[in-house]
């Protein structure tokens, strides 16, 4: 037992896994005692997440051996910088989700508490194990387990929508796993091993490499939700509890992305050009379609899920840029793009978790998911509103927040791509930048809609008017995440070098100088987020001073009465709704919206959801999870 308490990364990670599983089981056993069980679930999970954070920081600082067998557990771990980064990104959000869960679990019935608590802890443990696995068998096993835990959290709401979402997730998860098994079976066939370290040094024929990459892209893409493989994403984020949905976005889908990075850049050696270009095209499609569909959603969590897709696209732009950079032998492009992708991956976890947790609070306090029925929440839940405003602004990449910091780097890497000497790169660079800018404008419209319709104006229903602030632990979790968003944005010049080191360690490129003295820079431009922050805070004082100086005998501001309505009496029905706000774009992009119904064959969907399959899959999932748990512990 003493090996667990040495403070080494490997032992800390083991400790975390054990604490997650034990606190999950412990809380499950005493689920009827509300307070105790919630505390066991939440606090246990927080301790475990803290252990992972400490371990990840130690690994990032180079204080660990790369290959390690975890003490006590029969698990081979690979403690590389890339793995440490994803562990850090996942455990920071897991920490906040657990804080939120502490309060949420006390407010639900015993059976729901037992199941959510146990599954959530198992999910985090499985994802952590997947992120540090050293062989394909472990990786696939753990991802499968995580997907099954996710399935059980999606279906527990037990309405038609949740059951359909669960079925979608179950089927795409299994197909994904199947693709991954095929991909690694190919590699095993060619090299005789599934161990990553062996695969890394094995030589494969181009045919095998490409087949493996395509299979792995499909498999990991199903987990990551690359459009058109995203069918499971939107509704499952809305059906699962809010903190579980946050974990789907910030951890489960990210493991898919890291898988693509691993296969595309790490295991198979230098990628050919068309891999990178294909990933770039898929990425820009995912980002654009995700942003476009998000705009038409009224259910906050479905909307956020579509935005997760958008951000997955943005991260993949970085990954694809890195692959293209390696293929074209442009080290600056490769390292800058990978740096941007990884930094955005981290940032997305922060702001998206804040948003899901905030949405969960609103849902808990009002019982409403549909934002058309909300309104005026900012006055009733000011802390939640403020935190969500910051997170929303990060999501739309507004300076000086963290979304901007990483997207700025991404634009700079696209600029490197545009100014290379290969025709296809010169053609695609500017167009990808336009795609990203268009996505950014769509995101801006979307956050204006979310914030304006949900938090501002007058309440549109009695439930919204009666909202009260959420429990303190919940509010604290969102506020802390919002603060992290601000920090990671404003302090980006000091954070970027850490991410740069990870990118460099993966690509074996010379160290890229990207930040110094509070300024982040690329070979072609520079930006200082702290300076922009100071200016943005200071400049509004100028007009304020002018107004104050010329005040004269002005009376104080007055707020009274209704808005002007051409002399008619004002009625609540006149106010622009979320649908009305996005209506012009529905008209302008009508062909793209019709695409959704064209691309989904009705006969297939109705055949899938005819009833018996759902029940069958549920039983299958239970059996599979039980088998996997036994296998994992054996």
């Amino acid at each position, binding site marked *: 037992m003493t090996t667990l308490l040495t403070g080494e990364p490997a032992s800390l990670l083991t400790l975390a896994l054990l604490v997650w599983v034990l606190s999950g089981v412990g809380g499950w056993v005493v689920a009827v005692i509300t307070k105790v069980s919630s505390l066991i679930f939440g606090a246990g999970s927080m301790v475990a997440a803290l252990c992972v954070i400490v371990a990840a920081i130690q690994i990032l600082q180079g204080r660990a051996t790369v290959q390690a067998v975890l003490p006590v557990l029969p698990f081979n771990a690979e403690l590389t910088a890339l793995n440490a980064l994803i562990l850090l990104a996942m455990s920071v959000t897991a920490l906040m989700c657990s804080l939120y869960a502490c309060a949420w679990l006390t407010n639900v019935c015993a059976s729901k508490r037992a199941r959510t608590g146990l599954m959530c802890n198992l999910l985090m443990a499985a994802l952590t194990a997947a992120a540090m696995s050293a062989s394909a068998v472990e990786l696939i096993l753990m991802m499968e387990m995580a997907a099954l835990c996710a399935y059980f959290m999606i279906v527990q709401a037990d309405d038609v929508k949740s059951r359909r979402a669960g079925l979608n997730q179950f089927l795409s998860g299994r197909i994904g796993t199947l693709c991954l098994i095929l991909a690694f079976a190919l590699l095993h066939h060619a090299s005789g091993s599934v161990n990553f370290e062996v695969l890394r040094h094995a030589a494969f024929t181009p045919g095998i490499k490409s087949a493996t990459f395509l299979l792995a892209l499909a498999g990991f893409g199903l987990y990551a939700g690359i459009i058109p493989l995203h069918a499971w994403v939107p509704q499952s984020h809305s059906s699962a509890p809010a903190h579980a949905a946050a974990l789907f976005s910030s951890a489960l889908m990210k493991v898919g992305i890291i898988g693509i990075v691993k296969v595309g850049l790490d295991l198979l050696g230098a990628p050919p050009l068309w891999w990178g270009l294909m990933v770039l095209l898929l990425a820009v499609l995912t980002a654009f379609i995700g942003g476009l569909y998000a705009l038409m959603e009224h259910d906050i969590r479905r909307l956020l899920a579509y935005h997760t897709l958008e951000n997955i696209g943005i991260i993949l732009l970085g990954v694809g840029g890195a692959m293209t950079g390696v293929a074209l032998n442009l080290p600056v492009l490769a390292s800058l793009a990978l740096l941007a992708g990884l930094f955005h991956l981290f940032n997305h976890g922060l702001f998206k978790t804040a948003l899901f947790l905030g949405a969960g609070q609103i849902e808990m306090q009002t019982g409403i998911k549909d934002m058309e029925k909300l309104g005026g929440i900012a006055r009733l839940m000011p802390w939640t509103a403020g935190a969500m405003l910051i997170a929303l602004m990060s999501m739309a990449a507004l300076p000086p927040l963290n979304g901007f910091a990483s997207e700025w780097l991404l634009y700079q890497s696209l600029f490197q791509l545009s100014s290379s000497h290969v025709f296809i790169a010169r053609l695609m660079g500017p167009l990808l930048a336009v795609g990203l800018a268009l996505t950014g404008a769509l995101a801006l419209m979307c956050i204006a809609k979310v914030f304006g319709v949900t938090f501002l104006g007058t309440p549109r229903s009695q439930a919204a008017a009666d909202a009260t602030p959420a429990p303190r632990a919940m509010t604290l979790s969102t506020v802390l995440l919002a603060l992290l968003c601000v920090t990671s944005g404003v302090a980006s010049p000091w954070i970027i070098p850490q991410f740069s080191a990870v990118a460099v360690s993966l690509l074996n490129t010379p160290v890229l100088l990207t930040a110094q003295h509070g300024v982040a820079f690329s070979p072609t*431009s520079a930006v200082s987020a702290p300076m922009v922050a100071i200016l*943005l805070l200071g400049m509004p004082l100028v007009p304020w001073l002018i107004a104050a100086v010329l005040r004269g005998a002005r009376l104080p501001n007055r707020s009274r009465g209704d808005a002007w309505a051409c002399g008619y009496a004002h009625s609540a029905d006149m106010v622009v709704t979320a649908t009305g706000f996005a209506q012009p774009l529905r008209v302008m992009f009508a062909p793209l919206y019709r695409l959704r119904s064209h691309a989904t064959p009705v006969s297939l969907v109705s055949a899938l959801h005819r009833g018996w399959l759902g029940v069958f899959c549920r039983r299958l999932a239970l059996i599979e999870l039980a088998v996997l748990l036994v296998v994992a512990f054996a």
Partner: protein
Amino acid sequence: MNFPSLLAGSLWPLALIQAVTLLAVAPLFAGFSRVMRARMHNRRGPGVLQEYRDIAKLLQRQSVAPAAAGMAFRSMPYLLTGGLLVIATALPMVTLMSPMGAAGDLITVIYLFAVVRFVFAIAGLDTGSTFTGIGASREAVLGVLVEPILLLGLWMAALVAGSTSLGAIAARVLHWPLSSSLTLTLAGLACAFATYIEMGKLPFDMAEAEQELQEGPLTEYSGAALGVLKIGISLKQLVVLQLFLGLFFPFGLVENLAPLALLTAVVVCLLKLLIAVFMVALIENSVARLRFLKTSRTTWAGFGLAFLALVSWLVAG
């Protein structure tokens, strides 16, 4: 170019001075365009200084807001003007280099415009009024239509210059590279188109369309808040105009800060703005407003120009 030295340069007082100067002359140019409009309508309107008189009067009056309005509505005029002032610090106005290199990068500037648009839009949603809500929606849609044009146009100019920093683009355009003439011309035209839309003039005054939307997001503003907002909106027109002029007409910008050269640069800068405002007024008063849902067909023309710039750049290789 060495970026850290560029940022630590001694130009930051100039950045603040040019931002405040732009703020101070914004109502003057608005007044000028008002005079132009009266002349073109064959009537004798109020003088050039009328905007200053209006604003001074408004600043001494009480702000009245509907009961539903909150912080977003109250703070918007200041945040909008402040955001535009931040952009104004980064523009190459009299110096070839962006005086605030820390923000003088085309991506940063485009996203700073997004901040301005965001505060404008959410203030429109904060009042519970129909007109402000629709105005907010239109403002955001216009962003979706304009942003690709602006980005691609600027991106092409940046590719010719080999850097995305505003100063580098201005310097490159000043020493007009003959081989890239077509690319720069097309990119400039595309940016001119986007700039004109951003200025919110006819036929593109979508968000504040006077006839049908009663000034859109501005509808519920009154008194001091409206006064500040009026300065802010005329500042926005000057800022987008100067962004275009500074990058595509950098003639007269100085590299070193000798007093005489600086004075000439200031005069040239104001003159260029005056000519631009004159031309904008000519166009504005000779067209009718577009139907909102048909705007997207017109903006394709701008994107087409930017795309042709890309094609010419690829061909010239």
